[in-house]
């Protein structure tokens, strides 16, 4: 069955009157035969049949008005189901140009108000500032609209913003956190029997001390999320061989380091230290990324110095070298110092999330879990994606949940699009 609709034939037709039928119901028509003659505002148009078949129904009689989109006739073309014929939008046209199709409607738009007097509403002027100054205010968390400008025409200068930023830090009282650890006498550990006492290594001792210091001084909080790294996984695959030819085993870690560094540059609070004694935040203008390496004796954290100056392959090479040196303990002290941010990868141990402890006096640490294929809902469909679980612990004295959210959002952008990562 074929439902033939009266079409917008671009001829100035939005409706027409049937002048004549050339067939009646029950007749057989051939494709191309003129079914009827329709008179419109402008022309008489012969309407040809689009298919061959038996005329089952004529929906209009001579003299009737038919509108664009109406089913003119139903033709049994030997195909069972009704196949509605697509009709270009119901555009009514009274008259047309000589080319193309022009939208026609009777919609009425609001009258022009220009005849009335123009009442000019007082305009509130925005703060005057250069884009550079605006950026600085944003970075320092200063609300520029509150800053009194000292420049020409009251323009807010960079110095104004810096002054405001400093003033702010002075006026907000820092929560009192005792710096020195309160003397705690630990209860003795006495076990009757069936225990073995083993002296810890020096390394373990250091680890224990550092961990305890960090946790007792820094109020930790951890935010977790998962990142879709399907593209990164695919991309690494394609680059693995190239890397191998250069004797590099390309893991995901170098990409993550790169992404972290780029993100740190934007969110400097995560590459900082809090000097509680002086009520100051120390922003570091270098990016030394510590990589926690699991050795037989315990965690060692060698540091990739100036990671922001390195490419992915360089980073990979560094990691390879540092971790092997860390494992055989041949690593020099200088390679273990001056970190500004740390990444710990417990994904290798098959874990997903963690609550990593910040390396004092850094302000944050990123935990990396294992990449796994997971069902994910995308566009209301369940699809399989490579998901990377990450956990970010941070110093809650200077960093809020919102900051962490923005940090992770940017990190997500980089990690979910390797091209962006490479181009940045």
């Amino acid at each position: 069955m074929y439902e033939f609709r009266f079409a917008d034939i671009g001829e100035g037709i939005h409706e027409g009157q049937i002048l004549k039928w050339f067939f009646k119901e029950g007749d057989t028509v051939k494709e191309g035969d003129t079914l009827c003659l329709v008179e419109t505002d402008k022309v008489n148009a012969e309407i040809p049949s689009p298919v061959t078949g038996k005329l089952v129904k004529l929906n209009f009689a001579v003299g009737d008005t038919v509108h664009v989109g109406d089913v003119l006739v139903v033709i049994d073309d030997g195909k069972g189901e009704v196949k509605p014929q697509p009709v270009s939008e119901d555009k009514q046209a009274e008259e047309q140009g000589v080319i193309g199709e022009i939208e026609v409607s009777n919609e009425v738009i609001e009258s022009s108000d220009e005849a009335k007097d123009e009442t000019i509403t007082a305009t509130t002027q925005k703060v005057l500032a250069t884009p550079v100054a605006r950026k600085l205010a944003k970075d320092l968390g200063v609300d520029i609209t509150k800053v009194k400008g000292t420049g020409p025409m009251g323009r807010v200068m960079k110095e104004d913003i810096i002054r405001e930023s400093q003033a702010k830090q002075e006026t907000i009282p820092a929560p009192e956190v005792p710096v020195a650890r309160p003397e705690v006498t630990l209860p003795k550990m006495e076990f009757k029997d069936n225990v073995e006492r083993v002296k810890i290594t020096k390394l373990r001792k250091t680890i224990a001390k550092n961990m305890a210091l960090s946790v007792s001084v820094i109020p930790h909080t951890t935010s977790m999320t998962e990142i879709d790294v399907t593209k990164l996984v695919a991309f690494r695959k394609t680059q693995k061989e190239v890397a191998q030819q250069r004797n590099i085993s390309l893991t995901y870690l170098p990409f993550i380091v790169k992404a972290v560094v780029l993100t740190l540059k934007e969110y400097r609070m995560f590459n900082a230290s809090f000097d509680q004694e002086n009520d100051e935040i120390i922003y570091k203008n270098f990016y030394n990324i510590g990589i926690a390496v699991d050795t037989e004796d315990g965690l060692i954290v060698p540091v990739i110095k100036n990671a922001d100056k390195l490419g992915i392959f360089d980073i990979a090479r560094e990691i390879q070298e540092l971790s092997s040196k860390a494992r055989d303990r041949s690593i020099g002290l200088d390679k273990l110092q001056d970190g500004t941010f740390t990444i710990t990868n417990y994904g290798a141990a098959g874990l997903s999330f963690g609550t990593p402890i910040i390396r004092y006096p850094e302000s944050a640490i990123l935990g990396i879990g294992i990449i796994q294929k997971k069902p994910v809902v995308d566009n209301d469909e369940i699809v399989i994606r490579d998901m990377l679980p990450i956990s970010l612990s941070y110093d809650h004295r200077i960093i809020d949940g919102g900051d962490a959210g923005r940090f992770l959002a940017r990190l997500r952008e980089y990690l979910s699009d390797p091209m962006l990562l490479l181009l940045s």
Partner: protein
Amino acid sequence: MALMTILQAINHTLDQQMEKDSTVVVYGEDVGVEGGVFRATAGLQKKYGVERCFDAPVSEAGIVGTAVGMAINGLKPVVEIQFSGFMFPAYNQIAAHVARMRVRSRGKYHLPLVIRMPYGGGIRALEHHSESQETLFAHIPGLKVVIPSTPYDAKGLLTAAIKDPDPVIFMEPKRIYRAFKQEVPEEEYIVPIGKAKVVKEGTDITVVAWGAMVREVQKAMQELEQEGISVELIDLRTIKPIDKDTILESVQKTGRFLVVHEAVTSFGPGAELVSLVTQGAFLSLEAPPTRLGAFDVTVPLDKGEHHYLIDSKRIAYEVRKLIKY
């Protein structure tokens, strides 16, 4: 007051001006007997005779070149180029003569003439029937370029163009020729050339558009409003000379600027506006002044044109980006 489409407003205005001013003459290809391929001049030949409204040979250089001569010798020609894509044979006349007669003769001669032409895409047309060439005129010193987006403005601007002592290129967004109606006062009035219109006041971003794009921006604004984004929409109406004050005042208030046009992006009208805003409202900017124009490609035919046309969704997307910046 009657409800009219843009096309009806143009026809009505031509009629009114021919009636009031016997020096107004109207001609072009198919303009006389048929009343123009879009019927913008329907009925005029019948009413005013073949010396005031007539069919020109297929000759754009002839149409514009003779208009120059007529304007020098006492008439006010209002000529039609059938589609803006066919103005190129007349471009020599327009750039070399229409634009220069006043300056060359140090004011001895001037050309009170109007060159009307439908322009713009979105009508599923053949090659050369969809372009937006406003820049090609606006770039020439000596021309004024006007584009209405409503029936009311069509009448007011065309009246102003006919009364203007200098040549005016009057570009008509054919896609919305009949897309809606508006009340158009019967009596003569002008909408001044060189004056933009704040269509809707807003606080977060200034969007400038003209022609068929105004309606697309308005559609985008409905979407954006629900998200709490307040757009100030300015209909430029005159591409040249630009109404600098209205735009700068608005951007100084909102701090953000987007210009939307059908013309291709590179070296387009958007570049001019962005430059103007950057210099004039530099200290108020919260985000880079931005242009949204067509891709730098030949307008695709129907089966690719949907990729090319700028719609409300893209405008809304671009606005959101600037708000979030």
